[in-house]
Every structure is written in structure tokens, then in C-alpha cells.
């Protein structure tokens, strides 16, 4: 990858009052990025993946957007009807925030650079603490070296944030690179729902390299939703690590809509008895889009459970890969792990690859995984047509229903409705 990608953000020093450890870690990451080889298709973690789609030479750190453009983005940054607060970023710069009452509950809800300056100890404890498990060490290093902003959300012990909090990350221009970061910490017994909206202002070739980490304390409940709606030419590399404590529950739903090549990695570490993780994803792939999804359900404690449901709808020459591993540590007895991948293939030229894997080292575990690939059910189609719905509308509605089943797993209604709108808009024209 090009040096230029790194030099500008470091030179710009976007973190005012950053502690030494933070600056050092970024510089270390830059060195690591230089030293690490680019991932190759011969690596198991990049098997089937189309690496040629990604040439970092084409990108420079995103330049700030003008006021006029900012003004036009704000009315588009609405999200769920009922929400507890929004942050709006454009090209890796915080440009707006709505007034939020959550601070009265002791919730810390701010940009990453504000958190680095105001709560350095908290950031240090949780920031970029996970290694790459999927051969993306180089991308993680790039992110850490280049990160300029993101969302910091800290929910104190026992605090319940009722309505969703949300961040919008806009990407505007061409040949721009952004590095959105999400750091969510939910302390013991708390609950929160957070949504990351990744959105494109224009249809151009850009790069997004994001890291989104969740720390779910004992007995806490976190719902995290990410809507990847970058432009259809954008290379998107998103990495998520979720650490779930005893008796806690994490639900992570990804709606994948944009990108030319979109790689998303999601890891759930179940640490503590009774920890549960639900990993959900719905993907619309069309044109020549490629979605490369790698997951790990890592059961590190007894009596933990995980449930993965990834659904892909494929049109045209699109390609999806879901490589999902369930790993059960030697002492993680009575693990209950479930993994289901379903592909709806709407074109003979599309390709859906499913690579499930199990690594079980404990006893008395219940692990199941399955992957199915199918076409539109003819009886469903006829039933809809018998009600007057045209064949093309019926196809779209059945596809919508197929993916909406994933969205329906979210409890929050106004957020569900907004995600359904996004899905419906994405399926228009098919």
C-alpha cells in the first residue's frame, strides 16, 4: 500500500491533547502496516476473496467537506424516528450532533478524539485491544495508524438507554479514504442500542477501513446495528470484535448494501457463563459486487450461547462469501452454538460461497451449522401473482421478506422500520 495514505493523517495530528501512549501506538501501527505483507489469496483467511479489487494506491485520506455540502447531508442523517441522539461525521470529521439527554444518565457519548482527550484511561483500556484473527492485521494497522475520529459510547453500570443512539458517517468525493471507529463500552447490567450508518454522498470510488468494537459487561445488553451503504464503487473493510461478559447479551446486525468489494469480519468472544451473542447479517449483492464475510463464534466459557444468521440475496454476477467458524475452548462445556447461512440466488451468474467450520474441544456441547442456497420458491411466486402482484414485484417482495426476517430479529420498532426502508430502497429497480 502507498505511504501517502499514512503520512497525511499523522502529519495532521487530528487528536488534540493525545496522551503519549496513544501517539506511540499509532506510530507503531504505521510501522506495522509497512512491515506486514499484503494479504494473499493463498492465505486461508482470504480464500475465494478477490483482492485485485483493492488497490490502495488510488486513495488519499479524505479531505474535509465544505459547509454547503455539510448542510445538505444533515437532513439526510435522520435514522430512527425515536432516537436518543445522533453524531454526524463527514469525511472523518465530526460535523454535527443533536442535543442528547443521555449525558444526564452519566453516559459518555462523544467523538473518539474527544474521548482520547477527556477520558484517556478509559480509551486506553479498551481501544484496539484485539488482534486480527482473519489475516487482516495489515488493515487493522492501517486503521489504527490513520484513524481520525469515530464514536465513543460508554454506558455506566446499571444505566438503561431506552432509545437508540446513532452515528452517521458520510463519505464524499472521489479517491478518498476514511477510517471510522466505534468503541462501545456497556458496563455491568446496562443496556443500549447503537446504530452506525455508513453512507455515500456520491457514487465514486473510495476506501473505508473501519473498526467497530463492543465491550459488553456482565449482565449488560447491547444491540449494535451497522448499515453499510457506501457507494457501489467503494472498497469497504470493516472489522468488528464483540466481547461479551457473564450473563450478558450482544446482538449485532449488519445490513450490507454498498461497496464494490466489501470485507466484513465479525468476532464474538463469549467470556463468562451465560454470555450470549447473536450475529445477524442481511446482504443485497448485485452487479459485480463482492461481499466477503468472515465470522468467529468464540466460546471461551461454559454455558455460553451464540446464534448466527447470515442471509445473502444475489443478483447479476454478484458474489458472496461467508466463512464462519464456531470455536469451543476445552473448558467451555454446555456451549450452545448455532450458525445458519442462507443464500437466495436470483441469477445464474451469481455465486454464493459458504465455508462453515467447527472446532470443538469441550464436552456436552450443542453446535449446529447449516448453509442453504436456493432460488425463489415457485409456490410463493404463484400465490403472489394470484393476488395480482406482477412477477417482478413478487420477486422483489419475496426477496425483501427473505432479508427482512433478519431485521425482524431486532426489538426496536422505529429502528426496524428505518432499516426496512433502506432495504426496500435498495431493492427498487430489481
Amino acid at each position, binding site marked *: 500500500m502507498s505511504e501517502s495514505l499514512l503520512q497525511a493523517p499523522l502529519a495532521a495530528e487530528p487528536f488534540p491533547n493525545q496522551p503519549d501512549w496513544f501517539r506511540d501506538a499509532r506510530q507503531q501501527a504505521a510501522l506495522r502496516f509497512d512491515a506486514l505483507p499484503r494479504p494473499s489469496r493463498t492465505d486461508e483467511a482470504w480464500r475465494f476473496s478477490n483482492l485485485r479489487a483493492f488497490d490502495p494506491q488510488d486513495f488519499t485520506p479524505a479531505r474535509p467537506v465544505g459547509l454547503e455540502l455539510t448542510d445538505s447531508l444533515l437532513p439526510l442523517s435522520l435514522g430512527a424516528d425515536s432516537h436518543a441522539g445522533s453524531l454526524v461525521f463527514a469525511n472523518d470529521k465530526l460535523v454535527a450532533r443533536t442535543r442528547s439527554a443521555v449525558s444526564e444518565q452519566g453516559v459518555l457519548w462523544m467523538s473518539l478524539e474527544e474521548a482520547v482527550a477527556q477520558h484517556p484511561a478509559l480509551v486506553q483500556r479498551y481501544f484496539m485491544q484485539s488482534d486480527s484473527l482473519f489475516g487482516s492485521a495489515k488493515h487493522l494497522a492501517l486503521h489504527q495508524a490513520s484513524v481520525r475520529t469515530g464514536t465513543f459510547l460508554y454506558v455506566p453500570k446499571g444505566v438503561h438507554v431506552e432509545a437508540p443512539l446513532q452515528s452517521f458517517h458520510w463519505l464524499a468525493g472521489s479517491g478518498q479514504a476514511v477510517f471510522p471507529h466505534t468503541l462501545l463500552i456497556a458496563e455491568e447490567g446496562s443496556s443500549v442500542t447503537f446504530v452506525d450508518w455508513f453512507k455515500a454522498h456520491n457514487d465514486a470510488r473510495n476506501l473505508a477501513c473501519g473498526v467497530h468494537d463492543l465491550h459488553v459487561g456482565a449482565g449488560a445488553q447491547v444491540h449494535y446495528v451497522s448499515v453499510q451503504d457506501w457507494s457501489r464503487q467503494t472498497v469497504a473493510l470493516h472489522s468488528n470484535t464483540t466481547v461479551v461478559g457473564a450473563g450478558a447479551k450482544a446482538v449485532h446486525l449488519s445490513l450490507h448494501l454498498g461497496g464494490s468489494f466489501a470485507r466484513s469480519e465479525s468476532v464474538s468472544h463469549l467470556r463468562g457463563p451465560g454470555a450470549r451473542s447473536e450475529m445477524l447479517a442481511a446482504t443485497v449483492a448485485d452487479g459485480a459486487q463482492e461481499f466477503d464475510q468472515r465470522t468467529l463464534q468464540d466460546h471461551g466459557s461454559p454455558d455460553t450461547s451464540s446464534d448466527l444468521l447470515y442471509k445473502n440475496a444475489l443478483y447479476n454476477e454478484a458474489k458472496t462469501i461467508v466463512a464462519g467458524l464456531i470455536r469451543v475452548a476445552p473448558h467451555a462445556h454446555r456451549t450452545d452454538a448455532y450458525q445458519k447461512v442462507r443464500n437466495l440466488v436470483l441469477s445464474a451468474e451469481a455465486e454464493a460461497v459458504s465455508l462453515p467450520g467447527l472446532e470443538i474441544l469441550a464436552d456436552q456441547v450443542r453446535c449446529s451449522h447449516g448453509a442453504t442456497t436456493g432460488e425463489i420458491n*415457485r*409456490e*410463493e411466486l*404463484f*400465490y*403472489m*401473482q*394470484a*393476488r*395480482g*402482484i*406482477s*412477477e417482478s*414485484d*413478487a420477486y422483489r*417482495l*419475496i426477496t*425483501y*421478506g*427473505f*432479508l*427482512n*426476517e433478519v431485521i*425482524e430479529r431486532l426489538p426496536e420498532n422505529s429502528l426496524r422500520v428505518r432499516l426496512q426502508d433502506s432495504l426496500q430502497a435498495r431493492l427498487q429497480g430489481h
Partner: protein
Amino acid sequence: MSLVIHNLHARVVGGQQILRGLNLEIEKGSVHAIMGPNGSGKSTLSKVIAGHPDYEVTAGEVLLDGVNVLGMEPDARSRAGLFLAFQYPVEIPGVSNANFIRAALQARLAAGEELEATEYYGDLYKEMDRLEIPRNFTARSVNEGFSGGEKKRNEVLQMAMLKPAYAILDETDSGLDIDALKVVSAGVNALRGPNLGVLVITHYQRLLDYITPDVVHVLVGGRIVRSAGPELALELEAKGYDWIRDELSEAALAAEPVLA
């Protein structure tokens, strides 16, 4: 104004001939019933009229107020005024009932026209109340996890919302207990009137206690072999289908030229 089925011959695509010259005319405002033993072609008839791709018509026509619908796609037939209440309503995961029925109504509007939401829900709730369907039904996925009774009520609800000119009810009584049967029948009866022709397909006479037909037909071997008033249904119930079959074979024997 009527739905005319004329000399209809149909078979499973690449397979067995099932309908062999079926003739029937359902006038608007009337209710006809077709009864017949298993395998006589009852369900095939409903699917052929609706345009199911598993069947092919080898001869004959189906005229909806004079227009032959057999060349139309199933969705065009529906929009032309035909409705089929399915014997086995199909489950559509992830698509809510409200969304589904709205899409069906939207399909009847001209391009660019939008369904008015308040009016739509007003109509939907009114019909749901009539069929004793609880409100949370609108958010549930189409037929998913529904009991037999709920599925059949849903069929009648869709019929009420889509206001067809001709409705075919395919074994609507199957899988219903007596209470559900009463509710569903009352729903159908409420829709009876001068602007609707109904064809009720059933194996048992029971349904016809609640939906009284004007004419009863007996279907055997892919043809209508007898038509009469509602009393025919009672006769069939009492004597079974063998009686008709026996008479038919005698008639066939009588008609057969004696070979020397």
C-alpha cells in the same frame, strides 16, 4: 356477465390429462358448487383457471365476462377480476400481511398512483373485524405459523379486500373446525351479491350448509357429469360418490356399441 368455462382440457405439464372437456357457466350474483371424489380434477380446475404453471391447457377456453383469460399471466387474471382462495395458502416469511395485501391493491392502481394509507387500514380493519381477526395479524408474516382456520380467514380477508368479480374457493372448508367454518362462511356470505360470482369447490357437503349454492355440479373424471339444485349435495352426502359412478358406468355401457 359470467365466467364461462368451455370444453376445458388440461393436464399436468408433460404428464397426465386431468380435465377432459369441462363446461360450466357462473353468472355474476350466483353461487355454484362443484363436488367430486378425490382425483376428479377439482383442485386442478381451480389452478388451471388461475394460471398455475404446473398445468397446461390442451383445449378450450375460460371467458371472464367475454374475455379469454387463458393467455394471461396469473397476476393479470387476478387484476381482471378473478380470485382463487387456496386450499393450501402459501407461507411467505418476512412479508407482513399488511404489506402483502397493500402490494396486491397497489398492483391494481395506475402507475404513479399511491394507495391512501389511512383509507387502506380503515378498510382492512373493518374486514378483519368481520372475520374476527385480531389486530396483531397485520404485522405477522403471511400465513407463517397460522392455524388452518387463520389461513382460511386470511384467504377470505384477501378476497374481501380485492373485491373480485369471480371467486373460486378451493376446499375452503378443509382443516377447519365448526367454529372457524362458521366465521369463514359468514365472511363469504357477506360478500355475496349481484357483483360477485362464486365457485365453491368442496369434497364434503358440510360447507354447503353454511354457503348455500344456487347450483351444485358433480365433477368426475375431469368433466361435469351432473348439475342440479342444492338438494344434489344432500343426495351425494347420503349416497356417496359411488352412486354417481355406478350410474355413469351404466350410461357408458348403454352408449357403447355392442360388438358382435
